[in-house]
């Protein structure tokens, strides 16, 4: 099964259609996605600031990291889940979207940065856990982490300005005349049926 057929299957799935058809589901997925990423960013930022000596220098690095990072993973899982559900609503378009790809790339680099920090830099941590400034390697990791995660947020926001949300059904016009719907409307005046792939966005791009 090649990627194209996977994307098409996602787009055609019942879950994807259910989210597209709902007025509330997509905005709520976005909102929960922001909650997740806000917590991911906030808890990672705490460790980065500590490594850079910008906050809580009197508290051991291990403690600052230990108290927040397990929650980072829970919040990250929430963001991945909601992100995946949003992806399914327009899989083919997101897959080929440049900001989306940039976001995935920056997340992968942030993960790589984390792995290097964990397995290389952190091995000498007992020497700089407290009282001493962390070594250059730790500070570089912190700067990279900050830059990449701000980049991930920026690219995510950019996706919203480049992808118009797919909709199976066009929203009714604001000045809809209910009399036409309820009694003896002229069939010729009815709005034309809308193709899934060319449907008007449910809201302005960048919403």
């Amino acid at each position, binding site marked *: 099964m090649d990627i194209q057929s996977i994307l098409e299957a996602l787009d055609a799935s019942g879950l994807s259609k259910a989210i597209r058809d709902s*007025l509330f589901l997509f905005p709520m997925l976005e*909102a929960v996605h*922001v*909650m997740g990423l*806000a917590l991911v960013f906030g*808890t990672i930022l705490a460790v980065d600031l500590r490594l850079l000596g910008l*906050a809580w220098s009197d508290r051991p690095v291990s403690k600052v990291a230990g108290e927040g990072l397990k929650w980072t993973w829970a919040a990250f899982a929430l963001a991945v889940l909601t992100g995946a559900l949003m992806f399914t609503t327009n899989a083919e378009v997101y897959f080929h979207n440049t900001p989306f790809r940039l976001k995935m790339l920056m997340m992968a680099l942030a993960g790589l940065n984390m792995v290097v920090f964990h397995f290389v830099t952190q091995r000498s941590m007992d020497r700089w856990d407290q009282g001493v400034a962390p070594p250059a390697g730790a500070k570089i990791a912190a700067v990279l982490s900050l830059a990449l995660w701000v980049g991930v947020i920026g690219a995510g926001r950019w996706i919203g*300005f480049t992808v118009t949300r797919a909709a199976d059904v066009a929203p009714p016009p604001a000045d809809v005349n209910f009399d036409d719907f309820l009694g003896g409307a002229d069939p010729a005046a009815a709005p034309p049926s809308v193709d899934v792939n060319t449907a008007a966005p449910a809201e302005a791009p960048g919403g």
Partner: protein
Amino acid sequence: MKEFAEWLSATGPSVFIKTHQAWLIPSIQTLHIVGIGVILGSVFMLNLRILGWAGQDLSLRQAHDRFGPWIVGALWLLALTGLLLIVGEPVRELVTFSFWAKMALVAVGAVAVIGFGRMLRRHEPQWGDALARRPGVRAAALATFAVWLAVIVLGRLIAYDHVWGPLSPAARY
């Protein structure tokens, strides 16, 4: 409000942001999200301390003093970037139910966070850590976190104000 928003739309700063909106609006929004990340992360860590799940080696006052300045700084960042977003797209922001509901909750959330700090400073000598064991304080901490989550939801819903139906002022125009 719609007249005011339209007037604001025609002012120099608004026109400047609109002229460069392709990159300015997402950039300002990104900083806005960074700000809410700092607030949510800080309120979350403070909640963990109050509920007894993390940072028990620090007194309540010490735990608060770790995050308090970051919360206040993030509130300023949010106010500044939020103001720029309003100036850039006045009608999109101001002529919505979501925006005004969000502002009301931001006021509640900010008063709760700043008020907790004041209460700590005043009562810490007498009550110390017993403060964190009071059910009322724990409930208030959880409620404050919930308020900031709701702020995020309403912030996102500004773009989807039609979900409010007749509550949305856009429905009246």
